[in-house]
């Protein structure tokens, strides 16, 4: 594996990059705690990602409908992504306390942006001819969305979701660094401050598993959506 090679070749001190073997050992001994903490982080990530999806879906539609809104809202979106956690952190704990809320909000903040950008982009690409054609058939605006724009735009939505699913676990972790009682981020901070780098990497291993799982989930969702959209039609010869 590249990792073992890197460790060996680059002679990276083990306090910076522990050997896979010691990480595996840490994984084994800490399995119980990691599982519990992973569960907390996964929970926060899923809730946050879910809310971000719904928010991004809704606002992208609204902003697509009223383009002026998009143009004035977009800079705010960019700004929301540039605020460093250093500043957001205290604000979030001030407004939302030390519970799960601030973590979920961070997940939302990190997931919302890629989804809305990619979804908006895809919505904007739908052919106006096709839209107008539907309108000559009496389609109201919401029907144009239901029948045409959403089915076509979902491609972008899922591309954004895939990026978001990759970031959202990091969002939860960063949230847990602010203050927490459980979760992989909390665990990571504690073992890191104890200089137990092998355990830090064991936690990262869990983060990676969660991120990959969420990513797989988005592929499954995408498949499911298209299956629902094109209801199991097969040529019946």
């Amino acid at each position, binding site marked *: 594996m590249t990792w073992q090679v890197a460790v060996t070749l680059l002679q990276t001190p083990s306090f910076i990059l522990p050997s896979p073997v010691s990480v595996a050992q840490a994984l084994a001994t800490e399995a119980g705690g990691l599982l519990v903490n992973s569960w907390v982080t996964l929970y926060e990530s899923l809730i946050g990602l879910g809310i971000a999806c719904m928010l991004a879906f809704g606002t992208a539609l609204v902003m697509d409908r009223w383009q002026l809104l998009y143009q004035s809202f977009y800079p705010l979106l960019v700004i929301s992504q540039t605020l460093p956690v250093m500043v957001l952190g205290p604000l979030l704990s001030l407004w939302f306390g030390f519970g799960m809320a601030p973590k979920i909000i961070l997940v939302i903040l990190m997931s919302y942006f890629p989804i809305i950008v990619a979804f908006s982009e895809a919505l904007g690409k739908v052919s106006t001819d*096709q839209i107008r054609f539907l*309108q*000559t058939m*009496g389609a109201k605006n919401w029907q144009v969305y239901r029948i045409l724009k959403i089915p076509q735009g979902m491609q972008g939505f899922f591309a954004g979701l895939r990026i978001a699913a990759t970031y959202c676990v990091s969002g939860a972790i960063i949230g847990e660094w602010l203050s927490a009682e459980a979760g992989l981020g909390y665990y990571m901070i504690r073992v890191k401050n104890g200089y137990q780098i092998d355990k830090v990497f064991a936690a990262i291993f869990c983060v990676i598993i969660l991120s990959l799982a969420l990513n797989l989930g988005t592929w499954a969702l995408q498949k499911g959506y298209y299956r629902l959209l094109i209801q199991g039609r097969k040529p019946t010869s």
Partner: protein
Amino acid sequence: MIMTITLTHVGLTLDDLEILRDVTATITDGSFVSLIAPSGAGKSTLLKLLTGLLTPTTGTLQVAGQPITGLNTTFSYLPQTDMLLPWYDVDQNITLYQRINHQPIDHDHVTALLTLFGLVDYRHFLPHQLSGGMRQRVALLRTMLNPADYRLLDEPFGALDAMTRGLMQDWLLSLPADLQKTTLLVTHDIEEAIYLSDRILVLSARPAHVIRDIALTPTHRDRQWLATQAPLKAEIYELLRSAESTSMS
């Protein structure tokens, strides 16, 4: 009140390109009018003006006394490109109007039409699984199931083989009176125009304007009669040729 479509001195310029010039025409209620012109003249553009997809640069368009301003649902419109929705199967695509307007679907009627159009075995196929001609028939069926008072058909039979085309033409003619609606048909097939229309408007090449308005009132319309119309066909062909050459200058 007489329900008519009226075009008064309609002109259109797109991107510095004059497409229609001073088109004036009246299409009376219940008539079947064909539009014949060289390729690229502006026929599709004219239909787009009626549906409100485009706005004229000069002149006015009226339907039943009301001016056309912007998109409207007065017409049942078959665009030149089929505009089938790729994620809907044949069944869903043809009943789009009913789905949009929450109207009940007469399934027996739909099945009968699908059979007639040779599509009944393909009702659950997606557009990408159909041949070019099949897509066109699906689009035509969708238009026929739209109950609007006027029909605008842009080359509905262009991709069909001679036999299927003849079948469809005969079917159109044989429709009961209540399904016979005021129709504006764009076609490249002069025979087809003669066979189906009460009136044929021949347009010049771009910028299009009406160069001939031919009324047809046969007592009985069938293929036999059509065979006798060779002189008219030749005349229209000649018109097209001259239309093309004047514009080429």
